[in-house]
C-alpha cells in the first residue's frame, strides 16, 4: 500500500503514514517470504501441469500398447544322419514291429533268414545299407531223397490252400536239375529250402525294402511315386550298382552320385528326386520343408558348413536370400533361421519416441505417469474433501453444542480413530479383489474408504478450536449483539477455524497421496488399466524389473516423493504464515 498524498504534508502521527496490511495480505506476504513454501508451490505447479496438461501434449494414450518386431534366430529344422533302417513296404505287405526287430538282429548276425510271429523272412543285400526283404510261406515239404523221383503225392502239404499242381512239380524238378533253389511260375516266385532231410517248398512274397536312405521328390506330386516300393527297389539297386542310368515307367532317369546321397535327374537335366542318408524334420508342424531347403541343408551338413543361404521365394525383400545357421549338438544338426516375431515391447528402453521407455505391458511410461498423476492427485483432493466435510460437520457440532452431544460425538471419533487402519484397508482391498470390482469403480470406493477412515483428525481440530473460540470475548459480543446462530457460526467462528483447516488439509493431501500410492503399490488400490503413481511402481515387486529397468520405477517414486514434499512445504509455510505469534 502506498502512502497517498492528500494535499499538503502529513503529520508525523497521521494514521495514513503507517503501512496497514489486511490480515489476508499479511499472511500472503509471510507466505511469499518463506523460501520453502515457494519451492513447494513451484513443485506443485509443476506436478499439476505435468499431470493435467501433460496428457494433452503427449502423442499417446495411457492404454496404447507398443509393439516391436524382433529378429531372432529360431530353430527351423533339425537334421540327423540316419543310423537305422527305414522300411518301404510293398503294397499290401505286412511287416510288424517284431519282424523289424528280428530283421535288425539278423542283419547284425549276418544270417539271411529270420522268423517272426511264425512267419519266415529272408533278406538279400542290394546295397551298402539296403536290403530287399521277402517273406516265405511254407507250402509243402518232401524228403530230400525222394524229391527228384516222387510224384505230387510225396509232398506233404503244409498250407491248407495249397495244391501241388503238375506244372509246379515240373518247374520244381527243372529248378532242382539246374541246381537252383528259386524258380518262377506264373509270376510267383518259389524257393526251395534245404532243411537237411527235407526240402521245403516255399512261396515267396515281396515284403519291402529296408534302407538307410531317404527319398525326397522335387515336386509334391511325385512324392508318392518316389516313396513307393516299386520305384525305390530298382532305384536302390541301380544306385548301389553304380549305374548312372535308371529306367522306370518308360522314363530314363540319370543318377548323380554325391557324398552319401544320390540325385535323380530327369532326361532334360532337371532334378527329380534325391536319395540321402540325412533326415530333416521341421521344428513346427506347420512348416513344410522345401526340396531346395533340404538339398541345400544336406549339402551344408555333409560339407560341415556352419551356415548356408537360400534364395528364398517367399521373402524376396531380404537380400541374398534367407540365411540359415547350423549348429551341431551330438548327432543332431540344428538349423536356425532368422524369423521375425511381433512382440509387445515389454520394458522397451528409453528412446526419442518414448522418453522414459515402456512398461511391462508395452505402454509409454511418461504418458502413464501423466495419467497416473491425475488419479493420484484426484484421489488426494476428493478424499480430503470428504474428510473436511465429515470432519467439519461432526467436529463443529461437537464443539459448538458441547456437553452431551460433544461427549457422544467424541466417543464416535474415538471409535473411528482406533479402528486399525491398515488391516481394514487391506481387507477392503482383498474384498474388492474377490468381488472383481471394475477398476474405475474401484478408485471411487477407495476414495470413499480413505475419506471415511481419515476424518477424525480434522474433526478433533475443529472441535478443539471451536471449543476455545466459543469462550472468547468476541463470541460473547456477537451473541450480545443478537446475531443469528447461522451468522455467528459462519461469519465469526468459521473464519477463525479456516487457517488451521487449510494447513491441515494441505498436509493431509500429501498423506493421502502416500497412502493411496502404498495401497496401489501393494496391488490393492488402483488397478490396471487405470494407473496411479503407486500402481506404476507396483512393477518393482518383480525383482528382475527392479534390477534391470530403472526407468520403470524410479521416475514414479520420485514424482510421489516430490508431490508429497511439495504439499508438506506449502502446508508448513501456511502454518507459519497463519500463526500470528510468528515474529517474522
Amino acid at each position, binding site marked *: 500500500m502506498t502512502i497517498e498524498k492528500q494535499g499538503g504534508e502529513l503529520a508525523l502521527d497521521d494514521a495514513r503514514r503507517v503501512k496497514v496490511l489486511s490480515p489476508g495480505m499479511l499472511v500472503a506476504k509471510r507466505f511469499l517470504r518463506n523460501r520453502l513454501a515457494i519451492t513447494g508451490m513451484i513443485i506443485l505447479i509443476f506436478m499439476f501441469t505435468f499431470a493435467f496438461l501433460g496428457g494433452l501434449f503427449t502423442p499417446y494414450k495411457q492404454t496404447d500398447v507398443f509393439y516391436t518386431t524382433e529378429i531372432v534366430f529360431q530353430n527351423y529344422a533339425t537334421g540327423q544322419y540316419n543310423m537305422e533302417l527305414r522300411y518301404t513296404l510293398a503294397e499290401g505287405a505286412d511287416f510288424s514291429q517284431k519282424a523289424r526287430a528280428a530283421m535288425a538282429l539278423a542283419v547284425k548276425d549276418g544270417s539271411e533268414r529270420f522268423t517272426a510271429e511264425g512267419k519266415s523272412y529272408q533278406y538279400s543285400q542290394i546295397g551298402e545299407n539296403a536290403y530287399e526283404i521277402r517273406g516265405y510261406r511254407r507250402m509243402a515239404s518232401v524228403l530230400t531223397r525222394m524229391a527228384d523221383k516222387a510224384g505230387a503225392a510225396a509232398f506233404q502239404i503244409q498250407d491248407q490252400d495249397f495244391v501241388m499242381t503238375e506244372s509246379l512239380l515240373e518247374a520244381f524238378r527243372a529248378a532242382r536239375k539246374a541246381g537252383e533253389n528259386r524258380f518262377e511260375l506264373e509270376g510267383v516266385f518259389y524257393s526251395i529250402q534245404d532243411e537237411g532231410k527235407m526240402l521245403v517248398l516255399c512261396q515267396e512274397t515281396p515284403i519291402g525294402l529296408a534302407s538307410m536312405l531317404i527319398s525326397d521328390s522335387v515336386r509334391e506330386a511325385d512324392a508318392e511315386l518316389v516313396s513307393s516300393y516299386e520305384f525305390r527297389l530298382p532305384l536302390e539297386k541301380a544306385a548301389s550298382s553304380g549305374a548312372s542310368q535308371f529306367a522306370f515307367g518308360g522314363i530314363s532317369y540319370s543318377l548323380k552320385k554325391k557324398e552319401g546321397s544320390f540325385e535323380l535327374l530327369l532326361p532334360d537335366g532337371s532334378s527329380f528326386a534325391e536319395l540321402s542318408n540325412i533326415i530333416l524334420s521341421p521344428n513346427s508342424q506347420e512348416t513344410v520343408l522345401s526340396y531346395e531347403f533340404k538339398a541345400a541343408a544336406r549339402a551344408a551338413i555333409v560339407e560341415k558348413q556352419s551356415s548356408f543361404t537360400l534364395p528364398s521365394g517367399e521373402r524376396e525383400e531380404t537380400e541374398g536370400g534367407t540365411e540359415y545357421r547350423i549348429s551341431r549338438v551330438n548327432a543332431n544338426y540344428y538349423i536356425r533361421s532368422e524369423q521375425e516375431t511381433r512382440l509387445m515391447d515389454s520394458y522397451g528402453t528409453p528412446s526419442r519416441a518414448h522418453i522414459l521407455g515402456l512398461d511391462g505391458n508395452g505402454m509409454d511410461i511418461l504418458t502413464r505417469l501423466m495419467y497416473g498423476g491425475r488419479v493420484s492427485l484426484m484421489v488426494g483432493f476428493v478424499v480430503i474433501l470428504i474428510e473436511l466435510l465429515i470432519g467439519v460437520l461432526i467436529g463443529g457440532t461437537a464443539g459448538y453444542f458441547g456437553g452431551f452431544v460433544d461427549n457422544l460425538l467424541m466417543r464416535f471419533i474415538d471409535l473411528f480413530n*482406533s*479402528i486399525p487402519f491398515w488391516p481394514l484397508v*487391506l481387507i477392503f482391498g*482383498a474384498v474388492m479383489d*474377490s468381488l472383481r470390482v471394475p477398476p474405475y469403480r474401484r478408485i471411487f470406493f477407495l476414495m470413499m474408504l480413505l475419506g471415511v477412515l481419515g476424518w477424525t483428525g480434522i474433526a478433533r481440530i475443529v472441535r478443539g478450536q471451536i471449543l476455545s473460540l466459543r469462550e472468547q470475548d468476541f463470541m460473547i459480543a456477537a451473541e450480545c449483539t443478537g446475531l443469528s446462530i447461522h451468522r455467528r457460526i459462519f461469519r465469526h467462528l468459521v473464519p477463525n477455524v479456516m487457517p488451521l483447516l487449510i494447513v491441515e488439509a494441505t498436509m493431509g493431501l*500429501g498423506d493421502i497421496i502416500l497412502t493411496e500410492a502404498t495401497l496401489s503399490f*501393494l496391488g490393492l488400490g488402483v488397478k490396471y488399466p487405470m494407473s496411479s503413481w503407486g500402481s506404476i511402481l507396483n512393477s518393482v515387486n518383480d525383482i528382475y524389473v527392479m534390477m534391470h529397468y530403472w526407468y520403470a520405477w524410479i521416475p514414479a517414486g520420485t514424482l510421489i*516423493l516430490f508431490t508429497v514434499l511439495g504439499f508438506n512445504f506449502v502446508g508448513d509455510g501456511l502454518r507459519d504464515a497463519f500463526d500470528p505469534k510468528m515474529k517474522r
Partner: protein
Amino acid sequence: MWKFIVKRLIQGIVIIFLGSLIIYAVIRCLPTSFVEDMARQRAAQASSVGGKSYQEWLNQLNQVYGLDRGILPGFFAWLRKAVRGDFGDSWKYNVTVTEKFHEVIGCTLYLNIVTFLLELLICIPLGITAARKQYSRTDYAITVFALLGISLPTFFLATLLKYVFSVRLGWVDMYGLVGRNFYKMDAFHQLLDMGAHMLMPVVTLTIAGLGGLTRFTRTNMLEVLNADYIRTARAKGLPESRVISRHAFRNTLIPLVTYMSYLIPSMFSGSMITEQLFQIPGIGYTSYQAIVSGDIPFTMFYSTFLLILTQLSLLLADIMYAVVDPRVRIH
C-alpha cells in the same frame, strides 16, 4: 483418578467391541475360499477310509467358525470364545493364532525398539538444535530433512535401499531375516547375520519416522523457549547449555512422553508395510499375509490386539500426562 481410569476403561471396552464388530463385518464379505479348500482337502484325505464328504466337511467347518450364521451371531460366537482367550486356529498357518503370535511378535518388537531408540537419538538433538537456531540455515536444513522423511514413500525408500545396497553393492540380502547358511553358523555369527538382515528395515523405519518426531520436538521446544522462566534463567546469567538442558529440555519432555505412549500401537502395526517389503517374519508380515489370504481368525485376533493396544496407549498417555506434569490433575 481411579474413577477416571475406570471410566476410560469402560469406554475402551465399548470401542474395542464395536471396532472388532466392524472389522468382522468387513472381513465376512470375503469369499470363504479358505474353508472350501480345507473341506476339499479333508474330504480327499478321508475318502479312502469312507469319511465324510466335501459337503459334510464344509458344513462342519462353517459351523466351527460360525460362518453358517449371519454376521451378528457369527461375531458373538467368535466373541464368546475370544473373551476366554481362545482365538481359534489360523487358517493360513495351521497353528493356533496365539501360538503363531508368540512365534513372530519378538521379531517385530526388536525391530521397532531398535528403530525407536535410533529415532530418539537422532530426532531429539535435531529438534532441539532446530528450535534453538530458529530460521537459521540449520533450521531450514533440518526442516527440509524432516519433511523429506515424512514425504518419502516407505516402499520407494525400501526399494531404493534394496537397489543400492543389495543389487549394486551386494552388501546385504534383499529379503528375509536369516541368510542361506544361517543354520551352519555358530551363535555369534547367527546374531550378526540377523543383525545384517535387520539393517535395511531398521533404516527404512527410522527414516520414515524421523520427520514426525523431529518436528514435534522442535515445535514443543520452541514453545518452551518462549516461556518466561527461560528468560529468567538467561537473565540470571546461566550458561546457555544449562538453560537448554536443565530448564528447556526437561519441560519439553512432558509432551514428548505422552507422544511416545501414542507410539506404542504403531510399534506393532507401523512396521507392517516395511516387514512385508523385506519379508521379515514379524507380526506385520504374518498378519499382512493372513489378511490378504482371508484368514479370518488371525485377522480378527490381530485387529482386536491393535484395538486393545490403542485404547491402553490412550489411557497410558493420559496417566503419563498427569504423572510427568504436576500441574495436571485428572478428575
